[in-house]
């Protein structure tokens, strides 16, 4: 074994029994988040029931099944409740093959995973390799082989600090937690993690080139899901102590990878084959994991094999319907598929339940519809209620005809008066929010919720305290039950974005539909556009620009007509090119264009010398206007300005207007818009001719 590393880190005065021989696990019984609020206000997350069993039971059971001999349960929030629960449970009996030690810390001193590991390091409890797991993880993974693998790797790589366990699950799989989306770069030959990124809010992922140079073969994986189980070398704890800024696992991994060259520490990844592991990190995941348990993906951690003595076993019948003893089912009631009903619950007549969990001692009335709901213990649901996609905590009472919108969460003790309708994605709690003085919900909150609670109800809308960094994350479980739509939508955005990127990469794909199809003219246009842009930004003199444009003209061999047209088009498109977005069609457009035209007046005067060139430019103006409806609106202003500056002569404008446009559609758009200007011109001419007479 690997004594060399151990002896370096072990504290003097070690115990007689070598701890390496004992397989040790640290179970962090707090997720340091408020995803489950308000349900977790009074009860720790680890004790929340998951398919009628406290979550921590699953975690301890999976550790026990993998052969762990000693587990430290580290509690922060509501530590006393967890301690009490464990003391009463089978886990603390002397007959238990796994010994458990509970460590608790006040939540003021410990606010993150990092803090808790620093605290454990301070207590110097751990000497050997250990398994680090969160108490909200459900898994049936055999951890010992992975631990062996970890030790085996240390023979070749002394710097190994952690083997983290990942599960492959493809995009769109329900066990992918939307807020924990990650991208890993792995060396496929040995499984070393080379790069770790949380990709939730990223559109583009960047990887250092150095990594590819160093490793000829790199796998980029987007299909891996973090199970929150890791095999750690003892050095992990001091590493956390040395770096106070490591708060989460992600911080730790990033830190290790950044300091890789200095400390020579490495992290490996283990991909699960055929085992199950998932973390109940938010309510959507609670939903997903519950379904996995009911559909027996987590075997042997399934309701009918629940080993705890205090709860009677569930019996399993067809279509994954589990019932504990004492369940009564009324006439014509249906438990359709994937349903779990707890001890002594009563279900009334003509009630329909599907894909749901119902806790102990619940009373459900007649004609109730329940689907995709998680109903905990002692809940009373009266007749004709309708519940779809909801989480209902202990002791909730729904009077007759209550309707819950999708994704509602009702905290313990909430009572809703008959006929109450709750909008989707609402969280209710039984006591008024502490920060607010009023009973009614003020409209100042970001969501403009009507007061959902009628006079006889006990239930107040819970507003999640707005954390700076978690606003996006909270959105995720806000959307419980609606995820699919959200996902496709974002994908569309992504692809649109992708197309845009593509366009930016390739100038030949540039938007405007009025670009010349001829390659030479196109290059000429681009060059002119560039010259003009630079000319405007650097205030280059008109004469020099004319020289530049002329040289481009010869380089690309374009006709004079094309030059006239393209120069005008380039000038007109300059504002939108410079701001990189189309104008809004108001005076602002004109405000942006005017100084540009003013600056280029010498250039225009140079090119527009005779009647023909003016006609060309007017044609270009028209074409541009037809293709850019936004521009069309200000055509009149542009014409007027150019006329006023004597760039375009009256005769040319009138001749242009007299000839039919090339594009019939221009008749209705551009011609219509310039109509007032033309009439004004004509009138002016008549006047002047009158005068001359």
């Amino acid at each position, binding site marked *: 074994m690997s004594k060399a590393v151990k002896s370096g880190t072990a504290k003097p005065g070690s115990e007689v029994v070598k701890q390496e021989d004992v397989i040790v696990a640290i179970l962090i019984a707090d997720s340091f988040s408020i995803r489950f609020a308000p349900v977790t206000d009074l009860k720790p997350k680890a004790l929340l029931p998951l398919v009628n069993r406290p979550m921590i039971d699953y975690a301890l059971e999976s550790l026990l099944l993998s052969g762990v001999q000693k587990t430290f349960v580290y509690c922060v929030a509501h530590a006393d409740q967890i301690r009490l629960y464990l003391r009463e449970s089978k886990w603390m009996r002397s007959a238990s093959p796994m010994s458990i030690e509970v460590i608790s810390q006040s939540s003021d001193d410990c606010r993150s995973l990092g803090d808790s590991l620093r605290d454990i390091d301070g207590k110097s409890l751990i000497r050997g390799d250990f398994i680090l797991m969160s108490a909200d993880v459900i898994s049936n993974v055999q951890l010992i082989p992975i631990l062996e693998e970890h030790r085996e790797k240390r023979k070749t790589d002394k710097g190994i600090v952690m083997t983290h366990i990942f599960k492959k699950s493809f995009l769109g799989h329900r066990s992918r937690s939307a807020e924990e989306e990650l991208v890993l770069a792995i060396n496929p030959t040995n499984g070393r993690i080379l790069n770790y990124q949380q990709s939730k809010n990223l559109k*583009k992922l960047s*990887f250092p080139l150095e990594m590819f140079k160093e490793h000829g073969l790199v*796998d980029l994986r987007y*299909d891996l899901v973090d199970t929150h189980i890791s095999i750690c070398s003892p050095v992990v704890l001091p590493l956390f102590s040395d770096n106070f800024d490591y708060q989460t696992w992600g911080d730790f991994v990033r830190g290790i990878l950044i300091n890789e060259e200095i400390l020579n520490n490495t992290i490996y990844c283990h991909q699960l084959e055929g085992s199950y592991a998932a973390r109940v990190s938010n309510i959507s995941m609670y939903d997903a994991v519950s379904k996995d348990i009911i559909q027996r993906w987590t075997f042997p951690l399934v309701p009918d094999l629940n080993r705890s003595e205090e709860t009677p076993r569930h019996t399993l019948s067809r279509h994954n319907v589990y019932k504990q003893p004492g369940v009564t089912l009324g006439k014509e009631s249906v438990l359709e598929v994937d349903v779990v009903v707890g001890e002594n619950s009563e279900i009334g007549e003509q009630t329909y339940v599907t894909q749901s969990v119902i806790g102990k001692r619940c009373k459900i009335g007649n004609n109730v519809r329940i689907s995709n709901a998680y109903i905990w213990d002692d809940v009373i649901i009266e007749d004709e209620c309708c519940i779809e996609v909801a989480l209902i905590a202990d002791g909730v009472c729904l009077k007759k005809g209550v309707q819950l919108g999708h994704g509602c969460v009702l905290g313990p003790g909430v009572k809703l008066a008959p006929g109450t309708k709750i909008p989707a994605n609402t969280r209710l709690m039984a006591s008024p929010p502490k920060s607010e003085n009023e009973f009614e919900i003020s409209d100042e909150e970001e969501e403009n919720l009507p007061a959902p609670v009628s006079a006889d109800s006990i239930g107040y809308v819970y507003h999640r305290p707005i954390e700076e960094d978690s606003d996006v994350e909270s959105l995720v479980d806000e959307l419980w039950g609606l995820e699919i739509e959200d996902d496709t939508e974002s994908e569309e955005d992504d692809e649109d974005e992708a197309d845009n990127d593509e366009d930016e990469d390739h100038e030949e794909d540039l938007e405007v539909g009025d670009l010349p199809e001829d390659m030479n003219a196109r290059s000429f246009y681009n060059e002119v556009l560039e010259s003009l842009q630079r000319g405007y930004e650097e205030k280059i003199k008109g004469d020099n620009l004319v020289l530049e444009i002329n040289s481009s003209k010869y380089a690309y061999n374009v006709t004079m007509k094309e030059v006239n047209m393209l120069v005008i088009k380039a000038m007109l498109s300059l504002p939108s090119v410079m701001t990189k977005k189309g104008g809004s069609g108001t005076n602002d457009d004109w405000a942006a264009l005017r100084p540009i035209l003013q600056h280029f007046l010498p250039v225009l005067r140079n090119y527009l010398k005779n009647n023909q060139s003016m006609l060309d430019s007017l044609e270009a103006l028209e074409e541009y206007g037809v293709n850019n409806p936004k521009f069309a609106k200000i055509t009149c202003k542009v014409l007027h300005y150019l006329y006023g500056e004597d760039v375009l002569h009256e005769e040319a404008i009138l001749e242009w207007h007299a000839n039919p446009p090339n594009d019939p559609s221009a008749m209705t758009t551009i011609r219509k818009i310039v109509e007032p200007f033309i009439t004004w011109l004509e009138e002016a001419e008549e006047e002047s001719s009158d005068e001359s007479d």
Partner: protein
Amino acid sequence: MEYQAVIMAAGRGSRMTDLTHDRPKCLLPICNRPMIWFSLKMLENAGFEDVLVIIHEQFKAEIADIPNKYGLKIKLDITCLQKNEDYGTADSLRLIKDKIKTDILVISCDLVCDIPLHKVFDLHRTHQSSVTALFSQTSPEVMLAPAPGPKTKIKQERDLVGLDLQTPRLVFLVSEADLTSENEEELSIRKSVMKHFPQISVQGNLLDAHLYVIKKWVCDYISENRSFTMLKGEVLPHIVRKQFTKSPKRNIDKDLPNADVSVISLNTAKRDIFSFLVGDEEEERIRSYSAWNDHRGDLRGPYQDHAIRCFAYVAKEGFCLRANTLNNYCELNRQVIKRWSTMFPDEEITPPVSKAQVGVDCLIGENTQLSDKCSIKHSIIGQNCNIGDKVRITNCIIMDNVTVMKETTLQGSILMKNSVVENSCDIKDCIVGHTVHSNCKSTNEVLVDADRLLEI
């Protein structure tokens, strides 16, 4: 005829100018055969009966004679470039666009490989790929093999090739050099690409064989789009990127009422890549009926519903190397002679009849005089050479009509056509292109004509 073959043989050999200043790259000898012979042989073995060849005009006669000279049955259809014209590979393709009738196989004349081509074609055919490229796994030792001439730091032109782990789809293709210059040493990938291909294997040690099977419509696109000059540098990355662009929805109903207008606009507007795309209706229908899919985890159809698809055939075994640098050229000579009997079982090489000490892995050309007391190891000697007494030659490439006088030691060098090395020289890791006088000692030098040096 399902495929047409095109050999790009107008390359200048810009990475080995010491050897190519008076001869085209495609005629440099590898194991005493002109480089292009290997491409022709490979095509003939794959069953091609004729091939389009693009060369420079002044070598036309010489190249046209090759099949005759070496008994190849393949017919050459030669297209010439003027002497000083420098055409990129895409430009060359544009030049012969009228001759292209079907999907094409494009190879470069400097490729020597024994990978069965039908496997590449199979991949191309199976997936109706737009472009299929051949890559081979190369060991870094081969790339870093020693070369004669001045010692320079070998610049490896590596590509980062992103392959989907599930299917051999080519997800991205960038050259390391581009990234280094443009992107501050980072490779960025859009997340939407990762969503389509959640498992990407990025390989940095693959050698692009510059062998592409290209669909006809892509050829049309290339010939229409004049901004492309290089296949490898521009076209391929472009097509690979275009895989992820959504094809515009063709709204037939909308087009029908004013059909005459739409026809005009089609001709005048710039045609985007999708307007070139020619789908096989039969194949589309089969796919829509079939339950087959190339990936799982989402509801997209086969090939992620991409109309443009690029695939990569990665040869795990077999020999594949391009003679595009001096190192590779030397290494190729050494490797090919070792593998000759397995690569070309039907092309026998006659062992030299001589009393001289000739080691294994040697090749002696016809009419070459070896004096009895010379020793030759790991070397290739061309035709009509004259090797004097007590000459020791190790690890050398000696082209035709070379004279080496007595008591000379040659090591790891290349002796160009018609060069002469006089008595008692000691030459190590040099390129010799003219007469080297007696008692010369050189290491890592280029010994070529003085007038040529002036020219430079």
